[in-house]
Each structure stands twice: as C-alpha cells, then as structure tokens.
C-alpha cells in the first residue's frame, strides 16, 4: 500500500479509529492491531511475502529467547550467527543471487572457462533490506546485552512489521523502538497534530517535488544520448531533488504516521542539501542507515582507531557496503566508492567533524563562503547521484562524458522544457521552505508556534499545491531496496 494512495487514505483513519477507540485501554490489543494492520498494509502489495516477514520475526524472536537463556559464549555466538546468516541469506537470495552469478560467469569466461548457470526469476520483496536490518539490530543488541530479549511475541512482531516504517524505514534500533511497544500509549494532542503536519509536508515532498522532478529526470536519463551536457546536468539536478523529495518525504510520512499512534521514530534526514561538506552530508542523509552501519560495521571494524590505512580501509568498506545495500549493481558500488573518495580527504585532514552545527544559524542568509561550500557539496553529491540513477556503468560513463563536453556550455533543452517551469518554481519554493525551517525536525514544524490565522492558510496552500501539481504517481524509489 502506498502512502500517497487513496487506499492508504482510507486505511489510516480506520486503523487510527480502532486503535484509539476500540483498543485504547488494552496494550496487548493495540499491539495486536498494529501487527494485523501492518500485515494488511504489506500484503496489499504482495501477500506471498508476508511469510518472509513472519519467518524473520520467528527466527529473531527465537534467537533472542535463546540468547536470554544461554550463558555459554560459544553458543551465544552461534545463535547470533544463526540470525545473521538467515537474515543476510534472505537478502543474498532475493537481492544478490543473480548479481553474483552473472559476475562469476563473466569472470570465468574472461579466463576462458564457460560456466552454464541459470539465473533465477526472483521478485525482490518490498522493503526486505529495511526489515532485515531492523531485526538484525535486535539480535546484535541482545547478544551485546544492550537490550533484554523480549518474551512478548506480539510486541516483537509489531516491532518488526510496524507499518509506517516497514518498507522504507527509518531503520529503527530495537533499543529505541521495541520498548515503546511495552508501555501504554496515551493519546497526545500535540504529538498527533505534529504528526499530521509532518505527513502533510512529506506528501508535498513526495507528490509535488519528487514525482514532478521524476518526470524530467526520467526523460533526460532515459534518452541521455540525445541531450547536451548542460541538459544532462539539469537531469542530474532533477534527480537529486527527486530522490531527496521521495525518500525524505516517505520518512516524514512514516514518522508523522507513527506519531499519530503515539510512537517516536528516529529522524532520517536533516536538511542534507544544506551541508557544507560531504561528512556533514552523511550525518544528515539517511541517518538511520548511516548510523546502523556506523554502530554495527564501522565500529566493530575498528572505526577511526588504528593507523591511517586502517581508517581509510574502514571508510571505504562502510561506503561500499552501504552502496551495495542499495542494490545489486556496480553503479551502487561506484556511488558508494565515490562518496568514500569524497570523504577520505576530510578524514585524513581531520576536517570531517568541522561543520557540526546548523548552517548560518540565526541568520536569514548564509555567508558567501557558506553558500559556496553548500554549492560545492551539492555539486559533488549530484555528480555521485549520476551513478546511482544510471542503468549501468556504461550509461554512467557516457552520461558523464557528455557532461564534460563542449555542449556543457549550450543552453539546456529537452522536450516539454516549458512545462518544467512550474516544477522549477515549486522546487525553489521547497528549498526556501526548507531553509526557513532548517532548525526544526522538518521544514514546517515551526508553524506550531504560529497563530492559526497564519498556519492554517499555509496548510491549505500546501494541500492545494499537492492537489493541483500532483505529478504522475511514481513508486517510492527506496521500495526497490
């Protein structure tokens, strides 16, 4: 079920009503309702894959109980590896099997050996990378005794399948989300209103910004051989806003929806395009995944301890694995590797923690230096997005080589270019709103401090813009991961 569908517009009030009116005084019933609602939500897309979620839930619940009882370190480690292998096994089969197979065949044929192997016609279950990582975090945290294993199967099932963030995150830590299922939720007016406000802004980002930018990004990327370098730059910028609007919009709707049910999810985006360097960008982009890799991969690898080569190695590993997490394609690995290359110089010069505050805090506009740094960071990020969006490495290479040709200095032109003007104006409006609200959790959060005579017309305006400028519905990009 898509957040931006009429199905969800009906589903959400029904679940909300049942949750607060029928199950309000019974914590267990509330959790059970969340599980049922979540399975309906997921099954709406493809009910067959509900068995995967259920199996993953059973495995990690059992592993958790085993870890609770077991004191023998070897057996505890065995239990942990059972969870890791099963969860990563799912990912391996559904997401990476064909990739590895194709690459092995290519590698062997390079050395003159032909291998006959059959690739599988596999449908990638929506959100498998998200809920797999979430359940893994539970097993690892229980193993490390950061969290007590739960005996409440319904609460654990609700934690794994919680519908607002099931298919595209934020990837919650068990330590943060699971305890919320143990405590009674009491309806909080302020929280619910804030949730609705964040949903509204998330819908605007997704429906107006991402879906409209997608139209032009797709047009330009899909026919990149026909366009000039300047047009391809514009295409990459459209994609930069598409992916930001799409993914951060989803996160806003997920967080807002959770707040309607009394839950607090972790923040996933913190105005990343206002970053002054790549390190800051990665502290602000897809925070739940970055911190997951930091806690469960980077730190166990040694983090920033050790000699320079160890540090560089750890950074390269974490970025490349992060790229590979997104999909079984060399383009994602290149995207991760490129970001690592951007990041390493900052780390080596000890400048990776320079910009920890909000840019131009308390000021209306950034200084020239800050603006230049933001532009440079945005350009580097957008350049890396080309690999992320390209169909394959050849496509990325030809796209980039056209950008760096003489046609870069011609005026951008593409079919229906005039129709893109409203999208550009809306994107400028969006950037302005994000800039004004960059101190908040999301851009329009500050409206809670404004009188209704000011805030309500603004909500109507946003609603009106969504209504009029809704782009043709596109699936959320991160569903494929």
């Amino acid at each position, binding site marked *: 079920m898509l957040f931006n569908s*009429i199905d969800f517009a009906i589903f959400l009030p029904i679940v909300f009503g049942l949750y607060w009116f029928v199950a309000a005084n019974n914590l267990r019933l509330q959790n059970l309702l969340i599980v049922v609602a979540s399975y309906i939500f997921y099954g709406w897309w493809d009910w067959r894959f509900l068995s995967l979620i259920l199996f993953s839930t059973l495995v990690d619940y059992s592993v958790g109980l085993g870890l609770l009882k077991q004191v023998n370190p070897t057996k505890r480690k065995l239990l942990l590896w059972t969870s890791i292998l099963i969860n990563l096994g799912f990912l391996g089969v559904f997401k990476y099997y064909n990739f590895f197979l194709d690459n092995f065949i290519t590698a062997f044929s390079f050395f003159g050996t032909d291998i006959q192997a059959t690739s599988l016609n596999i449908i990638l279950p929506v959100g498998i990378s998200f809920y797999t990582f979430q359940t893994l975090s539970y097993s690892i945290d229980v193993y490390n005794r950061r969290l007590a294993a739960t005996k409440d199967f319904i609460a654990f099932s609700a934690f794994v399948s919680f519908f607002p963030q099931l298919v595209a995150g934020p990837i919650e830590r068990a330590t943060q989300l699971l305890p919320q299922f143990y405590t009674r939720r009491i309806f909080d007016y302020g929280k619910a*209103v804030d949730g*609705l406000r964040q949903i509204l802004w998330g819908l605007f980002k997704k429906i107006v910004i991402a879906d409209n930018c997608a139209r032009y990004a797709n047009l330009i990327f899909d026919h990149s051989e026909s366009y000039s370098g300047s047009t391809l730059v514009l295409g990459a910028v459209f994609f930069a806003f598409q992916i930001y609007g799409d993914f951060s919009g989803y996160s806003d709707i997920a967080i807002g929806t959770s707040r309607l049910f009394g839950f607090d999810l972790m923040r996933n985006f913190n105005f990343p395009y206002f970053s002054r360097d790549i390190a800051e960008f990665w502290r602000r982009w897809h925070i739940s995944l970055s911190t997951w890799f930091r806690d469960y991969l980077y730190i166990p690898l040694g983090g920033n301890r050790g000699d320079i080569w160890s540090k560089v190695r750890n950074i390269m590993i974490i970025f490349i694995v992060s790229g590979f997490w997104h999909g079984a394609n060399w383009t994602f690995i290149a995207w991760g590797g490129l970001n690592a290359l951007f990041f390493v110089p900052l780390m080596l010069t000890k400048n990776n923690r320079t910009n920890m505050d909000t840019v131009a805090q308390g000021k209306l506009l950034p200084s020239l230096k800050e603006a230049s740094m933001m532009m440079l960071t945005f350009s580097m990020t957008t350049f890396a997005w080309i690999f992320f969006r390209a169909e394959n490495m050849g496509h990325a290479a030809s796209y980039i080589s056209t950008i760096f040709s003489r046609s870069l200095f011609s005026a951008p032109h593409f079919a229906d270019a005039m129709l893109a003007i409203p999208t550009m104006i809306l994107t400028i409006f969006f950037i302005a709103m994000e800039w004004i609200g960059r101190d908040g959790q999301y851009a329009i959060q500050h409206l809670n401090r404004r009188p209704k005579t000011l805030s*309500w017309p603004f909500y*109507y305006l946003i609603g009106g813009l969504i*209504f*009029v*400028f809704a*782009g043709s519905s596109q699936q959320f990009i991160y569903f494929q991961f």
Partner: protein
Amino acid sequence: MNKFLNRLCIFILPVLIAGAFMDTWISANLRKSNSHASKEYPTWNAILDGKLDADVLIYGSSRAWVHIDPSIVEDSLGLSTFNLGIDGHTFDMQYLRHLLALKNNPKPKLIIHSLDIGTLQRSNLYNPDQFLPYMLWDEAFYDKLSKYEGYSYFDYKIPLIRYYGKYDAIKTAIKMRLSRTDDAGRVRGYQARDQSWNADFENAKMAMEGYKAISDSLTERLFDSYLSECKADGICVILVYSPYYIEGQEFIENQSEVIDMYKRFARKYDLLFLDFTKDEICFDKKYFYNASHMNRSGAELFTRKLCSQILLHRGTTACKWQ
C-alpha cells in the same frame, strides 16, 4: 482526543465545502474549452445539451472525425449533419455517444458509421480528460468508463477528486474563466486537417508490420445489438470503410477478413456497406497525412464521393431515410 477530532473536522469542513464549489466551477469553465482534451468538449456539450440538431449523425473514431465533412453531407443530402467521431476510441465508446445522443436529442434519420480495422477491438481509456466535466454522479458515464482503467470509484462519486493532479485541466478552466476565448474548435464535430504526409508512416511501418486485428467478442455483440436497436427504432445505418493509404493496408494481415465481417453485419441487417479501401484516393499520398488519416483535400473529396454513393444506392436496402 475530542479536541483533536473537533479541530480536524473544523479544518476539513471548509475543504469539503470549497471542494464541492470548486468542482462545479472548474467543470463549468473547463467544458467551455474548444481545445483541451483533443477538442472533444464541444461535441460532448452538443450531445449532452441537446444541441446536435441533426438528421444525420456520423459515428466512428478519429477517421470519422477528420474524414467526413458535415457541411458537404448537408449540401449533398439536404439533411442537417453532425460528426460524433471520437479520437482514439473504438465502438464501445462510440456507443456511449450514441446512447447519450439519443437520450438528449431527437432521433436521427440516418447514421453514417465509419468503420476501421480497430472498430470492434477493445481500447484503453484514451484521452481521459474529455470525460472530466461530465462524469460526476452520472450513471451513463460511470457504467461505461468504470470498465476501463483510469479513474477510481471515488472519481465518479466524490466532487473534485478526479481533478487531483490535473494541472492542465485546472489551468484551462481558469484560462476560460479569465479570457473566455479559445482556439477554434471542431465545426459540427468535424476537424479538417491541413497537413501533408509526415513521418508517422515510417513509425507505423515499424509498429504495424504484420499486424493482425483481433476483435473483441463483447464489442462485436454490442455492435450487433446496436444495429438491431437502430433497426427497431427506424434509424438507418450506413456502414463505411473510408480510404486507407494503400501501402498502409499492406501491413494489416487480415484486413479482408475484417471487411468480410462488416459485410456480414450489413447483410444480416440489410444495410448499405460502402468499402473505399480500393478507391483511387488510397493510391495517392497527397490526400493523406499518415497511413490511416486523410488531410482536408482528401477528406473533402472522399465526403463528396461518399455522398454520391449514398445517393446512388438510396433505395437499394430496406432502410428508408428520406
């Protein structure tokens, strides 16, 4: 919770009220446009407002729309004429126009039904914007359109929902309200095309090579019952297969089978069937702008030929239309 729900209701109520008014406003202004939605609004308006004022109705797809000039038919047959050709749609949607035309207008004496290779096929909901101003709470539109993918149940039942994301339609409605002028539309449903041969043929060549028309059995049955209803109502129907550029005909594997099927319908109901697929117009590219559509000069020449054939064969079938 009560406070939350009360505030939510207070917030949403103006949206619902404004939504209903905005729906009426957008629809009323949008339907004034002659150009939006491939210029289909003037024809729908004439049908629904009972302003066809025609003894002869021309049915069919875009090939009817751009091939048969009502003014020439009027001059030749001495009967007022309106062209109800609907771009991109097959008989299923042509039948909706027929039903609504009968419901809102006096019965015609004669229907000239333009047929082609796809008439009895199933199409998708092409050019869906053409239905926007009319489809809310209208059972005839709901019954027909809901069989197609494109609009949801709520689009037919809740005001304004169907205008969601229809930026161009809303912009047109505002433009019509402000300027009240628009491009010249179709003349009594007909649209002459002042175009010369274009590259469409080369594209069609690639797309249509070895094309085989497979008719839809439901549409076939609907066509049969339509002919039967017309006969019962005393409406004469003339079936016409208008010219098709000869090289284009060669791509269609089973054109003769399709024409034979139309002949069988004509025989069953004792109707006149006029086949122009071997007419000399088909051999001259200057009369076409692509393989299946004639330009103005082709359409005018064809309409004259059609009328003379109709006059020539008058009285040869059971149907009496004058």
